């Protein structure tokens, strides 16, 4: 039995059916890349996988049980980064990282948060309020959570948007290390990303 399994998923937005009969299953160390044109329901699918949205039809299972019945246990095992990065303007980079981790149930020391931000190339900017950071830098603050969260499944919606090539490289390494340790990733991206570790599955939405 696979760890994350989606069966016969269907998504309806207003009057439009975005997709139907989507099936996939993910094992430890696997990456699922979701492809599709704008408006094909990629974000909707990822939000379903998080449990934020309910599929019109079908079921998503984590270790064999429906995620809707698992609730908190499942939320503790995933990290979701959406279009909106969840970075607050009025908080500094380090406060943002520490508070968002605490919300996710992982309280981290200031030292660990410093290291994570440094690793993301934000050394020296830890104490700046997020509103003076650039779009890409704010994205890096959000991505720094992946370094400290320790969850098994990462659900990433366009993680490479607004990032420069150095940061893309960083994310790539991060994903490879996560997959190498038996983690799982579901992501959407328009950019080609080249991951060599683990098996990569592709899911095409039309």
């Amino acid at each position: 039995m696979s760890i994350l399994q989606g069966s016969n998923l269907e998504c309806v937005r207003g009057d439009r059916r975005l997709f139907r009969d989507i099936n996939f299953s993910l094992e430890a160390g696997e990456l699922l890349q979701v492809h599709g044109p704008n408006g094909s329901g990629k974000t909707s699918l990822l939000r379903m996988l998080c449990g934020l949205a309910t599929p019109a039809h079908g079921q998503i299972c984590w270790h064999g049980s429906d995620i809707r019945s698992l609730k908190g246990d499942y939320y503790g095992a995933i990290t979701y980064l959406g279009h909106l990065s969840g970075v607050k303007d009025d908080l500094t980079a380090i406060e943002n990282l520490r508070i968002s981790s605490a919300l996710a149930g992982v309280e981290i020391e200031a030292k660990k948060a410093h290291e994570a931000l440094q690793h993301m190339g934000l050394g020296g900017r830890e104490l700046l309020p997020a509103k003076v950071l650039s779009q890409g830098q704010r994205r890096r603050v959000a991505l720094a959570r992946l370094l400290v969260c320790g969850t098994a499944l990462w659900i990433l919606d366009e993680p490479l948007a607004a990032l420069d090539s150095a940061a893309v490289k960083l994310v790539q390494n991060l994903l490879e290390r996560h997959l190498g340790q038996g983690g799982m990733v579901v992501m959407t991206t328009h950019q080609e990303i080249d991951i060599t570790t683990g098996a990569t599955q592709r899911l095409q939405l039309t």
Partner: protein
Amino acid sequence: MSLWVIQRDLLLAIRRRADVLTTLFFFIIVVSLFPLGVGPEINILRTMAPGVVWVAALLASMLSLGRMFSSDYLDGTLEQMLLSPQSLAMLVLGKALAHWLVTGVPLVLMSPVLGIQYDLSADALLVLTASLLLGTPVLSLIGAIGAALTLGLRGGGVLVSLLVLPLYIPVLIFGAGAVEASAAGLGAGAHLSLLGAFLLASLVLAPWATAVSLRISME
């Protein structure tokens, strides 16, 4: 933990002091407008005072409801809260308490000063402050439901007033009633106990209803 949320919201409020002060000044202005509308006759003002202060507190608390979730909604933090392994109701409780600390407590502290403008006796001032202390957290807790339901809607600010103001009525009646009863020599104990009961009931029920509403609004 809800402690984290309270801490964070207070930190944000300190960085945005202007928002807190606007609510407080709104409260002061509304209370100060009434004598201009009804005349300076001190006996009339004295009987009106509890009602005026309480209605102004209702409006001030309601006006600031929009901020409770909307900034978290716009920058994506709310999504992360919904995905927190901790209970969403506890997080909501934390946010409602933070809202009360930021908007309710200043009103409570300011009310004796405004009561003096209306020539309230020392006893009445004490009861007024006590009733606001017990009643304003109820406003934040019930208001959270309305704020959650109207999240991201066009004209949400006006809508939230339609939804929550009728629900505020019992608090208004017993809050203002407490002061009147003490002025009439009946003692405010019964009213304050009822306000306390409202507070307990809304502490238990409102965060849960708000959590359900947030999940509905975010879907």
